[in-house]
């Protein structure tokens, strides 16, 4: 590894994280505009054209606010919790391939920050650690509503982590690798010459269970019990103010984008744009179109997240647990079993 390699890696890190942070800001705006549309309102449209500058105005407001820590809170952990949340969201994004490799400056550059050969397991490990941000925020605030939010989140995440991992087994068996870039490469062919060989068509049940589990893991409605406003004031972040609250907010949206990117990579063909080989584009143009295709797919999944949030009511706690253990888990296991059987019959 020489200097240029280090520079390339740095450039990739800066680009990916700038995308993630800016994307999170834009998603906040998108969410507010879409929810306004659904509720027959207009939404923020005064700051900048179409309200484009609104998220930055919000950040400026949050930074200037006073940071209040409750007197009986555990100060160190109270400070650390939002950092864990945002750290996990950012580091999961490191393994997402946002394009096929390109040849530039005479060397082959893979368009992902970290090329880990246990990618899928890394993803699951980080998701499982992410719960600490919320749990510790709830505990360290020394407030009963916060604590309830934290407890709910740890119970919820433990329950849905299982079906999340199990629903990936089908994809793993088809691809035969844990590397995310190779999983995308396997999806670039066609079924019967017409349909793109995306995992959503090969693994429809796995796709559905994974998406539902992702909703639960990102604490989005209908699974937002950790911060259910009518019952828990603000849930785990009741006692947070200023930019520490802002970090939780940012982490939620960054998590949403990361999990949309993961869904795209694993099930929607990643950067694959079907039927593009026929156009005969130059390699660099092709790579750029593919990155564009990836971004469009991620944006569509994010939009899906937002629309679901504003159309479906919240689960009750017992419904959440029943769904997780009695419906999702058996479905995910059945999917793994079925995929194994089919693969065995084909081979």
């Amino acid at each position, binding site marked *: 590894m020489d200097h240029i390699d280090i520079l390339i890696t740095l450039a990739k890190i800066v680009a990916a994280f700038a995308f993630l942070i800016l994307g999170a800001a834009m998603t906040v705006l998108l969410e507010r505009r879409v929810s306004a549309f659904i509720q027959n309102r207009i939404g923020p449209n005064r700051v900048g054209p179409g309200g484009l500058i609104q998220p930055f105005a919000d950040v400026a407001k949050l930074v200037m606010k006073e940071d209040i820590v409750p007197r009986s809170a555990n100060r160190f952990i109270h400070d650390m919790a939002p950092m864990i949340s945002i750290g996990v969201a950012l580091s999961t994004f490191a393994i997402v391939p946002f394009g096929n490799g390109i040849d530039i400056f005479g060397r082959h550059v893979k368009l992902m920050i970290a090329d880990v*050969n246990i990618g899928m*397991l890394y993803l699951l*490990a980080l998701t*499982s*650690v992410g719960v600490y941000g919320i*749990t510790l925020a709830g505990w360290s605030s020394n407030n009963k509503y916060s604590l309830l939010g934290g*407890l709910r989140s*740890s119970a919820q995440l*433990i329950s849905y982590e299982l079906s999340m991992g199990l629903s990936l087994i089908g994809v793993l068996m088809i691809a035969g690798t844990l590397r995310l870039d190779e999983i995308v490469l396997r999806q670039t062919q066609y079924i019967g010459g017409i349909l793109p060989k995306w995992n959503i068509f090969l693994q429809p049940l796995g796709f559905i269970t994974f998406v539902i589990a992702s909703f639960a893991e990102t604490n989005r409605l209908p699974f937002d019990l950790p911060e259910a406003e009518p019952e828990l004031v603000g849930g785990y972040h009741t006692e947070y103010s200023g930019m520490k609250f802002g970090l939780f907010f940012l982490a939620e949206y960054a998590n949403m984008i990361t999990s949309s990117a993961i869904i795209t990579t694993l099930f929607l063909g990643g950067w694959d744009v079907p039927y593009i080989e026929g156009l005969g584009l130059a390699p660099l143009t092709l790579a750029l179109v593919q990155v564009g295709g990836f971004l469009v797919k991620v944006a569509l999944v994010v939009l899906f997240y937002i629309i679901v949030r504003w159309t479906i009511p919240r689960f009750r706690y017992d419904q959440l647990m029943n769904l997780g253990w009695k419906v999702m888990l058996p479905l995910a296991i059945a999917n793994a079993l079925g995929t194994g059987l089919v693969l065995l019959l084909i081979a």
Partner: protein
Amino acid sequence: MTLESILFIVFAAVGLASALLLVTRRNPIISALYLILNFFALAGLYLTLHAQFIAVIQILVYAGAIMVLFVFVIMLLNLRDERSLREGLSWKKVFAAGVSFGLLMEVIYILMTSASGMTELLPAKATEIGTVEAIGSRLFTRFLFPFEVTSVLLTAAIVGAILLAKKKLD
């Protein structure tokens, strides 16, 4: 000093410090958090040994699942800080100290006599053993029986736990 040995020293130091803090802290939650930090340091050590699979499983299973349950239960019980208990010297303590000292001497003796032979063997072979593919194929061929027996044992434990919990509910 190579990067690997620097990483080893860092992870080992973090692991030792967190293990020490884990037993000395009064607050159970803080102790649990130091245990999580210890698991991360251990995972880092596995990585320096090229055992990626075990490293990631260490985080996924221990730090991400088991410790979440630990923290969950401690939070649910709402434990206060531990209070110190005065305890005199008993024969149990003397015996434990003697055994620990003996084990320490044994480890030191082994390290003194065979340390040079151990380090040479590692890198080339370890990269082959540590991958997911190698562990998977070994687990489902040579170690299939112990693997299946373990899974049956775990299932039995789960069923037993549910049975015990249900009895109280009914």
